[in-house]
């Protein structure tokens, strides 16, 4: 099915299933190529007018009751008809009711989850999804395998003491690769740290990954950050920062810029279930909705924030339900189903850009690996739970069944691919390991755009110390 059809259909379903709440100031779809939306004056003015009207009506409602007042009230937005009473309040008409009803803490049933492939890799009958060509399908598959092999080998390299730290994306390969495949290179990625597959998809080479993990002189981050803190301006992938959820408000700002520049692109930001607790998450979702920014919030709900299970993280129905509270479309998707992730992000991207709106995607998945090489997750979660997700719910084998079922893949292809990736990565590691670290001068650059006098003085003093005590300092940093 063509992507535009999917997007239209998704939007129609949305429209028919919910009332238009913004009758006072209807949300103008932001159309590509149209004049830039005049954001500030219209909604703000409408809200201000609504405010005056609303509060005026409230006063009358509680005070006067004569006919003249009733007429005026109708004009002012207070509607009285039969037993029904309502008020035009900023945001739309609100009905008054006689019963005192508290909203329940949750819906009766949990939000359902979009899926295309069943556990055996067969498409579910009636499932609607974005078609992928054989070429695209195979590229997705090989990148998922590449990510898995890369994670396994880097993890081993850390265990051997060759790199100082690592963090795998095991179990989340479909999320990484399929979401990346649904984007274009012009879309801006603001990652957390468990999405190296997005960068892989964009063309970051295994050598480039290795350079960063070893912090050598070819690392774009100049060896300053821990392993896995990748970034590439060329590939529109903002550099990873360890603090949680700080990138979410950045994504809204970046998306707003894309919209102002009338780019056919959106921003996408990734985060975990734990990240939804941070203040930055709430700030970002609210800003995005109000600013009508074309940004996709991609939540990898993998069940665990280091040792904290989602039951101790939130009591809402996951992350997906939060979207509506902020006035944002959202979808829950099976994160271990590559086709579902691909289709959902593809459609979300289309809606975000064409309609100028944020979209929240919650992918249900599982962090199969430890949080990082500093963690032993068997201390706080059952091994059979990990094993179940690692085997029975593995996203790569499920997708492989579908690819292989189409006759596009065979066991020989599989072993050749895995072997090639392994060889290429081992070579990349050897090269990265032998490469010197960035020169000492880079310790002082980039703190500001130019090196100020205090840092120039500190560099001079440091060089004096190094001359006196060369043995104190690593030999692989060029002085």
């Amino acid at each position, binding site marked *: 099915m063509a992507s535009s059809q999917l997007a239209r259909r998704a939007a129609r379903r949305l429209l028919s299933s919910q009332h238009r709440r913004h009758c006072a100031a209807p949300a103008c779809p932001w159309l590509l190529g149209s004049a830039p939306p005049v954001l500030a004056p219209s909604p703000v003015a409408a809200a201000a007018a609504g405010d005056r009207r609303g509060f005026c009506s409230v006063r009358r409602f509680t005070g006067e009751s004569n006919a003249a007042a009733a007429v005026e009230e109708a004009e002012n937005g207070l509607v009285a008809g039969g037993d029904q009473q309502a008020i035009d309040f900023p945001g739309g008409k609100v009905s008054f009711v006689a019963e005192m009803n508290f909203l329940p803490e949750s819906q009766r049933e949990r939000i359902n989850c979009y899926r295309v492939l069943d556990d055996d890799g067969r498409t579910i009958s009636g499932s609607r999804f974005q078609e992928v060509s054989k070429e695209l399908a195979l590229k997705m598959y090989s990148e998922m395998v590449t990510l898995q092999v890369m994670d396994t080998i880097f993890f081993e390299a850390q265990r051997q003491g060759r790199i100082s730290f690592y963090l795998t994306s095991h179990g989340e390969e479909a999320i990484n690769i399929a979401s990346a495949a649904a984007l274009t290179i012009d879309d801006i990625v603001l990652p957390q740290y468990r999405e190296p597959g997005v960068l892989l998809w964009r063309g970051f080479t295994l050598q480039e990954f290795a350079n960063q993990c070893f912090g050598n002189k070819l690392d774009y981050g100049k060896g300053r950050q821990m392993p896995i803190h990748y970034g590439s301006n060329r590939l529109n992938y903002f550099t990873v920062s*360890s603090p949680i959820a700080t990138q979410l408000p950045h994504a809204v700002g970046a998306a707003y810029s894309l919209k102002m520049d009338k780019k056919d692109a959106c921003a996408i930001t990734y985060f975990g279930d734990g990240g939804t607790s941070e203040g930055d998450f709430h700030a970002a979702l609210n800003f995005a909705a109000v600013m009508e920014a074309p940004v996709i919030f991609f939540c990898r709900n993998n069940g665990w924030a280091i040792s904290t299970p989602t039951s101790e993280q939130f009591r809402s129905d996951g992350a997906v339900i939060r979207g509506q509270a902020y006035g944002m479309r959202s979808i829950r998707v099976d994160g271990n189903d590559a086709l579902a992730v691909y289709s959902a992000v593809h459609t979300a991207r289309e809606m975000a850009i064409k309609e100028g709106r944020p979209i929240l995607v919650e992918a249900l998945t599982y962090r199969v690996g430890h949080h990082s090489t500093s963690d032993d997750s068997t201390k706080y979660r059952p091994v059979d739970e990990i094993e179940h997700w690692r085997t029975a719910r593995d996203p790569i084998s499920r997708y492989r069944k579908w690819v292989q079922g189409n006759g596009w893949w065979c066991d020989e292809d599989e072993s050749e691919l895995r072997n090639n990736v392994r060889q290429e990565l081992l070579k990349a590691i050897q090269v990265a390991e032998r490469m010197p670290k960035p020169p000492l001068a880079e310790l002082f650059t980039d703190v500001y755009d130019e090196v100020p006098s205090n840092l120039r003085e500190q560099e001079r003093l440091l060089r004096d110390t190094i001359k006196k005590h060369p043995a104190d300092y690593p030999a692989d940093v060029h002085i």
Partner: protein
Amino acid sequence: MAAKSLREIRRAAAAGIGSRRCFSGDAAAAAAAAAGVAEGKVGGGAGKEVNLFTAINQALHIALDTDPRSYVFGEDVGFGGVFRCTTGLADRFGRNRVFNTPLCEQGIAGFAVGLAAMGNRAIAEIQFADYIFPAFDQIVNEAAKFRYRSGNEFNCGGLTIRSPYGAVGHGGHYHSQSPEAFFCHVPGLKHLRTLIPWDKETVEASVSKTGKLLVSHEAPITGGFGAEIAASITERCFQRLEAPVARVCGLDTPFPLVYETFYMPTKNKVLDAIKATVNY
């Protein structure tokens, strides 16, 4: 009883800072002068030497055991914490008093302020000092001023925030920082036990005797707590100083992974500064 447990905590924490200097090798601890003084004062007993995490763990056991209104919480503290400092607490004292919080530092600090304001001992963990900044507003504008702004109608004196800081060898930007100076600049915060108030008199007595002072910390030199120590001692001991107060501190750069050795106030930097001071 509460006072007793607090004394125990202080003791453990002060002793802990001393121990930390032992196992962190040549990494100079923050405000080494002040910390060393604290160690000297309380470390005189013939106790068994323990490392910092054990000391903290024991202190938390004591606090929870002696004060029924004490609570320990933070990210991942339930299973023992990522540094194992809360090991055994949840099993012994139950999940109502020792618990994981959602991943939200401002929430942890704000919750702790409210809990403490109700007369409880709230012991909150921020997993790394590098991650304390989302809680900065709650700590600086709320916790620190809670008593003063209410004319002592309310206070959150039962609040303790605990957070590991400093270089570990492979922490890079976000697992290495020493943010103590930010908090020392905030009237009302007392929990930086060895720094506010720092033991001026003991340092002054030492400088009066030797005429020399060297201050060292991992945090960047500019605006660091070392500057405060240097200024105070210059005020008090100007006539007796035989050399300028030396500072051997971190560089004015973000904490850099592969350059950690270059950034740090390492032993030979300290030794050179000592020699320069002695030979001044």
